[in-house]
C-alpha cells in the first residue's frame, strides 16, 4: 500500500532528487532577488546614488557652499557639469551633499512610518477590541491639519533637541520624527484590511488549534503574509518623506535654508527654471531615481520573500 501510494502521488507531485541540498532561508531569498531584473537594476541604481552622495565629493572636491557671484547662473560646462546657481555655487557639489540628507531622511522616516503603520494596522486588524479605538485614532491623524501641527511640534522641540544632539542631528531627528508620525496612516489602513482577511485563513485557525500563542500567530503567520502592502508602502514612503522634507525646509521648519537637500534645491531653482533648467532637473531626477529604485527593490523583495514565486 505504502509504495503504490508513494508512486502515484510522487509522479503528480515532485521531481525526485537523490540529494536534497540544505537550503537556508536567506540564501533562497537572495537567489530569487538576484533573478528579479528590476530589483537588481534598482539596487545598483540606489547603490550608485548613495555612493555618489557620500563619496562623490572625494572625486568632485568643489565646495558646495562657496559663493562667487561672478559665476552665477552658468549653464552646464566641463567646469561645473550641472551648472551653477544664482550665487555661483556648483550645483553638482550641492546635489551630492544634498543627497546625504535627503536619503537619510527619506529612508529613516520611511522606516519609522512603516513601523508605526504596520504595528497599528496589525493590532487593529488582529484584536477586535482595539480596532475601533485604533481606527478612530488613525482617522484623527488623517483629519489633523498637518502644517499647524508640524509648526507646534517643531517650535516646541527644536531647541531642546538642538541642545541635546547638536544642531544637525537634532534637526535631523526632529524632521524624521515629524514626517514619520504624520505619514503612517495609509499604511495602517491597508495593513489592517489585509490582516482582517489573513486572520480568517485556515492556517491561522490551524495555529489556534495547535495552541500557538497570540504573539507567535502574529509574527509567524500574520505578519509574513501582509508583507506585500508593507513593501509598497515602504517604497512610496521614501518618496513622500523626501518631498515632505523639502516642503518643511521651504517653510523654514526643517534644515536651515542655506543647507542643500534635494527638495530644497528644486524649490530654490524652480523660479529660474527658464535660465538654468539643469538646477531643477538634476536634483529632481535624483528624487525620482531614488523613488523608482526603492520601488523596484521593494518589488523584488516582495517576490523573493514569497516561496510560491521562488523556484528551487
Amino acid at each position, binding site marked *: 500500500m505504502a509504495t503504490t501510494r508513494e508512486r*502515484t502521488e510522487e509522479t503528480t507531485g515532485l521531481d525526485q532528487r537523490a540529494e536534497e541540498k540544505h537550503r537556508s532561508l536567506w540564501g533562497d531569498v537572495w537567489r530569487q532577488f538576484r533573478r528579479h531584473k528590476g530589483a537588481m537594476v534598482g539596487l545598483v541604481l540606489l547603490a550608485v546614488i548613495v555612493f555618489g552622495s557620500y563619496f562623490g565629493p572625494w572625486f568632485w572636491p568643489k565646495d558646495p557652499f562657496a559663493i562667487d557671484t561672478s559665476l552665477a547662473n552658468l549653464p552646464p560646462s566641463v567646469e561645473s557639469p550641472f551648472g551653477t546657481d544664482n550665487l555661483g555655487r556648483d550645483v553638482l557639489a550641492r546635489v551630492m551633499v544634498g543627497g546625504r540628507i535627503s536619503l537619510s531622511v527619506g529612508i529613516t522616516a520611511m522606516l519609522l512610518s512603516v513601523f508605526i503603520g504596520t504595528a497599528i494596522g496589525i493590532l487593529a486588524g488582529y484584536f477586535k477590541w482595539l480596532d475601533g479605538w485604533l481606527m478612530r485614532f488613525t482617522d484623527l491623524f488623517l483629519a489633523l491639519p498637518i502644517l499647524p501641527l508640524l509648526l507646534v511640534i517643531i517650535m516646541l522641540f527644536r531647541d531642546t533637541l538642538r541642545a541635546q544632539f547638536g544642531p544637525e542631528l537634532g534637526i535631523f531627528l526632529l524632521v524624521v520624527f515629524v514626517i514619520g508620525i504624520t505619514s503612517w496612516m495609509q499604511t495602517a489602513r491597508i495593513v489592517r484590511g489585509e490582516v482582517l482577511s489573513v486572520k480568517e485563513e*485556515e492556517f491561522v485557525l490551524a495555529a489556534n488549534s495547535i*495552541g500557538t500563542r497570540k504573539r507567535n500567530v502574529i509574527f509567524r503567520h500574520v505578519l509574513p503574509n501582509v508583507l506585500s502592502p508593507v513593501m509598497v508602502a515602504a517604497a512610496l514612503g521614501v518618496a513622500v518623506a523626501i518631498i515632505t522634507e523639502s516642503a518643511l525646509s521651504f517653510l523654514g521648519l526643517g534644515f536651515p535654508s542655506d543647507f542643500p537637500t534635494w527638495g530644497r534645491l528644486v524649490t530654490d531653482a524652480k523660479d529660474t527654471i527658464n535660465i538654468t533648467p539643469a538646477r531643477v532637473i538634476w536634483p529632481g531626477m535624483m528624487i525620482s531615481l531614488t523613488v523608482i529604485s526603492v520601488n523596484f527593490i521593494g518589488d523584488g523583495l516582495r517576490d523573493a520573500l514569497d*516561496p510560491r514565486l521562488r523556484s528551487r
Partner: protein
Amino acid sequence: MSASPTSDETTAVAENGEVLVSVRNLKKHFPIMKGVFKRQVGAVRAVDGVSFDIYRGETLGLVGESGSGKSTAGRVILQLDPVTEGHVTFRDVDLTETKGEKLRALRPQMQMIFQDPHASLNPRMTVGSIIGEPLQEHNQAKGKERKQRIEELLSLVGLEPKHANRYPHEFSGGQRQRIGIARALALNPDFIVCDEPIAALDVSIQAQVVNLMENLQDVLGLTYLFISHDLSMVRHIADRVAVMYLGKIMELAEVEALYNRPSHPYTQALLSAVPVPDPEVEATRTRVILEGDIPSPANPPPGCPFNTRCPMAQERCVAEVPAFRELDSGHWVACHFAEEAREKVKGIV
C-alpha cells in the same frame, strides 16, 4: 433537544466503552449586525442545540448538506470559536468553562484536520517548521530531537524526511493533506476533528488519504469526529453517524442501522440520492427527491427544521419541534413520524 442522550448514557457506556467527548445542547449563533450603530438584528443559528457523545477509539461521522453547520460544530467543539450556549466535556473537563493557558495546555490532546489543504498550510513556512510548530509551542523535543520527531512524523504519513526543507506549494493536494495530518499528530492527540479532509482532493487520492487516516487510528488509538457530505465515504470509515440539518441533529445511529434502516425522512432523502452499486436495485427502487433549497439558518422554519422539504410533513410538524428520541437502542431520531418513515424505507434504499 430536551431529550438529549443523557438518561441512557450508562447503558451506552457499557456497550460502547468510555465517553471521550460529550456534547450537550451546543449552540453557536452568529449575530447579524446592521446599520450605522451596528445593532444586532438577528442571528445565524449555525449550530442550534446538538447533543451527542463520542466514544474513545470510535469514528463518529457527521454528515449533512453544505451550510448545515458541520464545520461550525467542529470548531466550537474544539473551542476555536466561543460557544453561544451548551457544554462540551472532554474527559472530565468542561471545555466551555476552560480559558487561556488552561485551555492551551489541553490543546495537544485535541486536534483538527482541515478541508482545504491549500489554505491550511502557511505558504511562507517550510514543511518542517509547519510540523514542528506544535512541538515548539508546547516546548516538546528541542533541537536535534525535534528534527528527528519531524522526520518520524513525515514518514508516519507517507512522506520523506527530506521534504522537511520544502514549501507547501511544492506538493500535490494529497501530500499537503498528509502534511496537515502530520501536524495534527505531532502532539500525540487523542481526539481529532476531521473537517471534510478529503473533499478538496482528487478522487484518485481520496481513498489513499482515508486509508492513511484509518491506519493511523488503529496504530495510535485515535478518536475521530469525521465531518463529510460524502455518505459512501462516511459509511466506509465511521462507526456511528450523525445527520445534521440546519444546525440540528436529525438522526444518530450506528452506521449499519443508519444505512439499512434510516428512520428520518431527511436521512432517507440523502441516502436515496446515493446510487446503489447493484444496477437491478438501482433501476427499481423509488427515490425521494429533495425539493427546494436548505432554508437560511438566519430564519429557520418553525417546528421541525425539515418541514419545508419533507415529503411526510403534516400540521404537527410546523406546530411542534420534534423531540430527539431513542427509537431503539442507540438509534436516535428527531421526527414525529419516525416509525412510519421507517416502514416506508424498504422501497427507498
